[in-house]
């Protein structure tokens, strides 16, 4: 990892980081190089359509055994499109139309109006939608969908069970202390809070170095994946003990089309809009 990384443009990304993260990277030496290497992978792997039989060989590594470098599969790959439309039955992927309809049914007639969104707005923050566990083999086969919301006003996770076959909300459950993965919107809010926080200094510095001088001002300059952080489920320092009762988020952070910047030791508490460090 280190060796290959060193052959990449050796930006002084990490070493110029002034916050603790940058210092730690400088100490470990290999850190910066790794950043560049990982970025290369992130760019090449998902676009793997080039017949390069060395990049995607996790599971079906087969062609490499063929003599004469015949890397192209001898049998074609076929594709099934994602199902679409509102009228689905049975057990299969949810469609976009179903998700949209389930959300709208869940929030019909002003439901959850007293809740609060992540940025303090009226109504609940939408988190996720999933097909409900089937009671099969003994239950009915209705298309039942669970829509999850977070109410930042009361720090509660709210689940609306929507029967898409009947168009009705069948039940509403809520609880505190449960923290499913954050949505893209919640994650962007967390990144904005981090960018504006003194603890975001290392991120801002690393971003500027990686982009040859561009200032980091908004989450949209980053590719993010949010990680919920619940101290009831893992150990954490005392100053983060609220996380779990509060909705807290860590992030995998990447410069858009660029290198990773490791921010995983920083926790954004979206409930009280503060930032803390794990160490």
């Amino acid at each position, binding site marked *: 990892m280190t060796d290959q990384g060193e052959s990449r443009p050796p930006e002084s990304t990490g070493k110029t980081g002034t916050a603790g993260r940058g210092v730690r990277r400088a100490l470990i030496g290999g850190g910066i190089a790794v950043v560049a290497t990982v970025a290369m*992978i992130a760019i090449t792997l998902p676009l793997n359509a080039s017949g390069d039989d060395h990049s995607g060989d*996790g599971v*079906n590594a087969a062609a490499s055994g063929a003599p004469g470098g015949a890397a192209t599969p001898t*049998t074609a*790959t076929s*594709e099934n499109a994602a199902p679409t439309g509102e009228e689905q039955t049975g057990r299969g*992927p949810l469609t976009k139309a179903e998700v949209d309809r389930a959300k709208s049914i869940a929030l019909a007639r002003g439901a959850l109006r007293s809740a609060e969104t992540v940025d303090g707005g009226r109504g609940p923050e939408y988190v996720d939608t999933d*097909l409900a566990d089937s*009671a099969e083999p003994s239950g009915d086969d209705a298309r039942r969908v669970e829509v999850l919301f977070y109410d930042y006003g009361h720090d509660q996770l709210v689940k609306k069970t929507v029967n898409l076959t009947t168009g009705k909300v069948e039940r509403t459950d809520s609880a505190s202390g449960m923290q499913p993965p954050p949505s893209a919107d919640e994650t962007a809010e967390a990144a904005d809070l981090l960018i504006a926080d003194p603890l975001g200094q290392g991120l801002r510095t690393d971003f500027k170095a990686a982009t040859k001088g561009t200032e980091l001002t908004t989450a949209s300059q980053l590719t993010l994946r949010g990680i919920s952080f619940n101290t009831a*489920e893992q150990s954490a320092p005392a100053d983060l003990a609220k996380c779990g009762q509060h909705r807290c988020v860590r992030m995998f952070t990447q410069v858009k089309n660029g290198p990773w910047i490791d921010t995983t030791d920083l926790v954004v508490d979206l409930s009280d809009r503060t930032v803390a460090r794990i160490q």
Partner: protein
Amino acid sequence: MRTSIVRRALGTASALLLIPAFLGSAVASQAQAAPTATTAAAAATDCGTATAIKKKLPNGTTWTMCWRMSGTKGLILEKIAYQPRKESQPIKVLASASLAQVNVPYDSGSTEYNDLSDIGFGNTAIDIGATECPGGTISSAYITQQERNVKALCTSVLPHGYAYRSDIYDSTGHQKKYTKQGSDLVVFSLSQLGWYEYITQWNFSDDGTITAKVGATGDLSPGDYSGAGTGWPIGKGNRDYSTAHYHSVFWRLNFGLDGAANAKVQQFDTKKAGRGTAAEILKTTKTDVTKELAGTSALRRWWRVVSTAGKNADQHPRSWELVQQHSDHYDAHAYTSKDVYFTQYRACEQFASGNSDPACPVASGTSVDKWVNGENLTHPVMWVNVGFHHIPRDEDQTPMPVHWQGFQLAPRDVTAMSPLTPDELSGGNGQGH
């Protein structure tokens, strides 16, 4: 034609039979893969408007199932059914099967991830490229958090080497070689969690074996370096100690044996029972698991889930045996300290830890160890924990070779003989012993 059966064929250890699916992807020669498999219409499998996964493998075994993607759990397989060549109807096995947690704590004590419950394998699902699914079918699904369709599922048929071979002598002393190559229906999805990438894979073999495994690849964490004792020096010299860490992977299996929710669970233990005339006597005892159980692996211990609704032609109840592979369970959390759990089915109990369904009260606990509380076990859900302690090595530098962890479910008395038994030898059921 009736032939005399060679006794050793009856005593083959299941573990030996079961290993190929774990190795299958590595030894598979793509040139032999699967053009003979047929993809039938969804009609036969009740997935509603969705397209079922249905494959008839070259040796005649058909597997069918429904699939979908959950943002958190990733790939979910439902209504899994197995139809051996000579069975007139599919035999229902699992109502649903999915991952239930991937817990990744680092030995340095400075970081920990719950990759499934805190990030999500569907939320991070990535497109599978054509070269990553040679000869197979790539199916897309809408991923709600990504707000896009992802080429999320690859299904293909891959050879797994020997199904069997045997030189058998008929009653007139003539030798005949019986041998067959086996194959698997392979389904997998990919998830990219930061620098780590996971392959969630299921192999459904023509002999009825189900293999669940998760592969980790991508890159070691670029930010987690420690020192001797908690890391391993990778790269030149002894400078950068990449931190060792755990992957504890949980699967949740909701059985629906022969279409019934009710099933029995049994534990078997084989213990030394004194010397025989030529070797140690080993005695196997059965324990009915009638209440919820947090089980620990032990030498010669295994579990099976037994159908209350179906028997094979020999009048033996059909069952599916948990075949464990090597696992180092993580003893720093209660829920990862056990190797298998059996809990009474509850729809809202979905994750082995970090359960986040408000329909299950927080006070009842949010991890599987808390749900084992003496309840009668009539509709069992099996939770399998497989732990892998990863001490990095030089070879794990970019991209990290895939490391796998998983388990298998093997049919035990699901059919009267193996579904692959050649017709000439099928008269051997009950003979020769």
